[in-house]
């Protein structure tokens, strides 16, 4: 290809790419630096975009630091560390349960069945529905007295019980598991479709060979099916971790970070995950602080990804 033709090709490529590239640099690349810049400022003087004061690294010290007080080391911002703990608890509950539910449904559907596509679609459907609306509906299901769960449980157990008097979302010990349950039911269909596709790719001959060797169905599951599904499980763990670090809407819709729980001297929100805590800082007008938190969360995400990449690369070899 001659040189002028080559530069024409480059020009037309750039022209095709330009709308995307401009939007990408302005709204996806630039904000990363802008966010870093903002994280060195403090806006707690009063709500306003122009009311920024240079504070250097002090936002980061406030988030991550500890200080000596009353004969013990204390976190500068215990609510942030607590929100990280809640996030990991949320992920630790929802990821294994989500994988188990998806795998269970996939194993059920991986049989000769009439109406297979109906079941597949029915389980998949809640995935695409609006998270906030689903959260609101589940709040009504969990609500004491008038909620569906309270009504059904009162019919069976009588009115003097937990679901009717308190409701799962009002107790600090059950609020997070209740959210996890709703989200697992919403998301199970997605993993199910992934698992189902992978299960159908496993050749029948593998199982026949195992049958001849005298392996039981349970052994076949643990030693054949599960190892072959490992990439899917790995994928679901990664997306699950990113999902729990980004979790916000379900918390906003169902508990708004509450109910409060007292640990030591601190009163903390029992479902206040990191994403929700970040939003609360933002909502309170502490923009610089929120930007600094988002940088800390980015570092955690990248750290987890790095560990997984290493772990996964080692696994491949």
């Amino acid at each position, binding site marked *: 290809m001659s040189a002028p033709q080559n530069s024409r090709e480059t020009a037309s490529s750039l022209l095709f790419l330009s709308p995307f*590239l401009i939007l990408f640099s302005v709204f996806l690349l630039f904000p990363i630096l802008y*966010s870093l810049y903002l994280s060195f400022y403090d806006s707690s003087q009063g709500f306003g975009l122009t009311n920024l004061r240079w504070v250097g690294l002090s936002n980061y010290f406030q988030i991550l630091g500890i200080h000596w007080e009353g004969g013990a080391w204390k976190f500068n911002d215990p609510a942030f560390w607590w929100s990280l703990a809640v996030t990991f608890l949320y992920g630790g509950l929802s990821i294994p349960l989500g994988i188990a539910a998806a795998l269970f449904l996939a194993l059920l559907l991986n049989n000769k069945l009439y109406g297979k596509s109906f079941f597949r679609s029915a389980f*998949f459907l809640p995935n695409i529905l609006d*998270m906030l*609306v689903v959260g609101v509906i589940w709040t009504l299901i969990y609500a004491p007295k008038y909620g569906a769960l309270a009504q059904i449980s009162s019919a069976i157990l009588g009115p003097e019980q937990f679901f009717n008097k308190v409701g799962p979302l009002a107790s600090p010990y059950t609020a997070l598991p209740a959210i996890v349950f709703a989200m697992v039911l919403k998301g199970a269909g997605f993993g199910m*479709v992934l698992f189902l596709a992978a299960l159908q790719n496993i050749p029948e001959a593998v199982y026949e060979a195992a049958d001849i060797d005298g392996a039981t169905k349970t052994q076949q599951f643990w030693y054949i099916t599960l190892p072959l599904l490992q990439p899917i499980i790995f994928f679901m763990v990664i997306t699950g971790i990113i999902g729990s670090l980004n979790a916000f809407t379900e918390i*906003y*819709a169902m508990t708004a970070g509450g109910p409060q729980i007292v640990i030591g001297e601190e009163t903390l929100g029992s479902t206040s995950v990191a994403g929700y805590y970040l939003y609360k800082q933002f909502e309170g007008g502490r923009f610089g602080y929120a930007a600094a938190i988002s940088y800390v*969360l980015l570092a955690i995400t990248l750290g987890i990804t790095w560990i997984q990449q290493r772990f996964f690369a080692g696994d491949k070899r």
Partner: protein
Amino acid sequence: MNTQTVQAEPQTPAAQGGSPLRVVIFVTLFVAMIALCVGICGQLYKFLTMVAAAFAARGGDPAKAGEVMKNMAWMVDALTAATALALASITIRRWIATHAEQRAAFLRTFFLYLCLTAGVVVVLFPFFWMLCTSFKPAGTELLINTANPFDIVPAEPTITNFKKVLKLDAAPVSAEASQAVVDPVEAKKNFGTYFMNSLVVATLAAFLVTLFASMGGYVFAKKELPYKQQLFGVLMATMMIPGMMYMVPQFFMVCSMGLFGTKLAMILPHLASVFGIFMLKQFMETIPSSLIEAARIDGASEWQIFRVVIIPLAMPIILTLFLLTFLSHWSNFLWQLIVTDFENPLSITLPVGLALFRGQYTSDLGLIMSASCFSIVPIVILFLFAQRYFIEGMTQGAVKE
């Protein structure tokens, strides 16, 4: 007969069917399933009559609606009974006619269907409940009320809730009521407006994202550009960044552009879809380059090649991206909440509107449920028509990674 079976298949003792415990289990399950079927059929047909009655009531004649319900009542009973009988006779005949190992296989299938049906009921119950409750008149929203011991499907469906949610119940009862409705901004704060806002935002965003991603994907798949691979690497790297990260800086940017509270603010920061580029690049790489060469020799311009050759061939994947982007903007709550100007009804989208609405009517089941319908029902209908695109599109990216 039984012993023969055992000898023939010694590894599977579960295959023999005759033990008393098994029979007891089977009978119990069988009765439970019949009860379940009767219940489901009953509720389903009640639901159908409800729809019929709602159609009849549209003419404004509630007496006629009651009549329709009454006329259909015997049909409901007859159909339920027939279904139950048919199921029972089919099951019993099969049970008697089959061999022991086939009985075991049958039991297995039976368990399978039982589990799956129970799963579907649990997963879809919230939405069924939502739909039914939204049609219930005030005071009977509870599952267990004085009028009916177990009431999911409304006995006397009304559309009052929808009228209230759309602020169409403007019949001035008192002077204060008519005063309240006069405020045009307040009157515009209804779910009809929110629905249109969401529709505009999601459609416009989906169209632009798809257009820009197709153009970009075409470059990455088929065209020459210096440092193309490195650029693609940068794009992929940004996919790692959690979305929460962008909340603060994008908000500042949108505000300094003076876009706060506009629909453009909801769309603009999300127009560059790296996922879309990735998806379209993957697909467009499978289009043979000879087609492009042929078009070029025929004298087509670059834009003509893109429009006439690439777009039609990539249509399925473009449609998928369109649907997925539409969906993500339909339910992008956090960002829309942040940039919404609550004084301006034209900037309130469905999820934000619902969050606002719930603050006012905390425990009014009927109203909240009918408000939820505006977001859920259109997507369910869309899913029924385009489920292949949704399921394949959403899972495809995962499998390839």
